[in-house]
């Protein structure tokens, strides 16, 4: 299994057709490395990359609370998770034990990317 980081990862030569398809479904290319630009078709991205690499692909998850990257393989809910291994945000095992988790979540999100988007 190949583990990739959504922010930046490298792929072997994918060929013109695959490259065009990857960029169309939401992968960004930035001078040698790829990144997930659009999450709408992320399953399609995973399928194409799996096809290119010839093995299963899994993405790191980002913890909403501590910002750490972690894998789904350690999670006890992975058998039921509908978005397993997709590059989305979740809560890592360490942070799940934090008291007042919801307040922390709201605080982090309120002061994070949502707040930093430019005002009109």
């Amino acid at each position, binding site marked *: 299994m190949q583990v990739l980081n959504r922010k930046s990862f490298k792929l072997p030569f994918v060929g013109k057709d695959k490259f065009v*398809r990857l960029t169309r479904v939401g992968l960004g290319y930035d001078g040698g490395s790829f990144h997930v630009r659009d*999450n*709408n078709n992320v*399953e*399609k991205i*995973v*399928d*194409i990359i*799996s*096809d290119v690499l*010839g*093995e*299963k*692909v899994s993405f790191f998850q980002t913890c*909403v609370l501590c910002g750490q990257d972690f894998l789904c393989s350690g*999670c006890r*809910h992975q058998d*039921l*998770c*509908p*978005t397993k291994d997709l590059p*989305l*945000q*979740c*809560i890592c095992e360490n942070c*799940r034990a934090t008291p007042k*988790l*919801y*307040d922390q*979540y*709201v*605080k982090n*999100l*309120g002061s994070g*990317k*949502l707040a930093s*988007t*430019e*005002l*009109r």
Partner: protein
Amino acid sequence: MKDELMWVEKYRPKRIAEIVGNEEAKVSFVEWLRSNRWRKKAALLYGPPGVGKSALVHAAANELNFKIIEMNASDIRTEKAIGKIAGPATTFVALDKFSANTEGSLLFLDEVDGIFGVQDRGGVGAILKIFAQKKGRKEKKTKERKEIQGSQIPVVLAANDPDLRKLRPLRKVCHLIRFRKVRIPLIVVLLQKICLMEHVTAGFEALEAIARNSGGDVRSAINDLQTLSEGGEALRVQDVASLHPRNRSFDFADTLKGVFSAKSSQEAMSVLNSTTIDFDSLVLSIHDNLPLRCKDPVELGVAYDLLSKADVFRGRIGLENWRLLKYFFSLISQATTVSSQPFQPFDFIFPPMRIIALFWTKGKRVTLEALCAKIGARCHVSRRSAKLDFVPFIKAILKEDKSAPLGAWFQLDDKEMGHLMNMGRL
């Protein structure tokens, strides 16, 4: 009841950050709302129910000071009704925009996939009209003339399935934002908070069990929690056992992955039983993807044989013989599990190639139809007869002599002449 108010209403998020899950979608929506992109395109929030689509719109409007004009499934959404509300709202700037306390109005059309039937005739067209291009005079094709008229206020649509045929035109004028089922740890976090606020003693395992049972639907998880907590003082795992598991439906990606990666035909059949793809598209998709799964020609032959039998059953089912559906599913599940090789991930082909081919050749087919209509009118035959009995001969005559008076007699223009000369066999 402890409380008259439903908890889903009582704990409806007031701020964007209070909505759990779908962080990427939230950021995308807020960026769209804060930029000027909403003038050119509406936002189409789509995803399964209970994941926070409507909650995000209300929370964002509350936080960013927009006044919501909402039309949901309980309203009549004909072209006239939408035009009456959306027309003035999206064309003129409301006076309250100049007030310091508000950013203006926001038009929210909830459950747009429910716009159908005679009651809602022309509803989708009315939404499209808001973002229709301003038509300039042909001789002045400057950039200014081509500019998009757009809307004066943000227009937000919410739907469960944007792939529905009736909603396809909307995709072109919408910024798509996908919502996914909320992950279990995030639902647990919210349930813990509600328990704290409601003074409900609940074990962590019990909350996890509720979240797991909800299938990523926050609304149903909160409803389950409220129902169960009314029974006694403390909520235990044993209490949660009485909950019925919620039905899980598979979209095209899940269905194709499920049937091709299944280790047995029973496993594939259970996926097929919960699929949301229509059966004709399913047969075509399996047909396109079989060679990617079965590399051995003998196995591939067997798989296609089973698929052809499944297609026969699909035809027999028609619109009424649904008792035959089990045979259809059984044959498809056998076809997809023929390969003895372990499943290797591959890039699934969807939509089916046949549908893509029809899409790409639509222009040619329209030209041919127009051409046949002219020939049919001139020769007093049907369009079908013109296509089958006349077109091949006219093509042969014109190939011999391009300047033959036949083209002028049929009143064929240059495009139609070109199409006739270059077309392949019918």
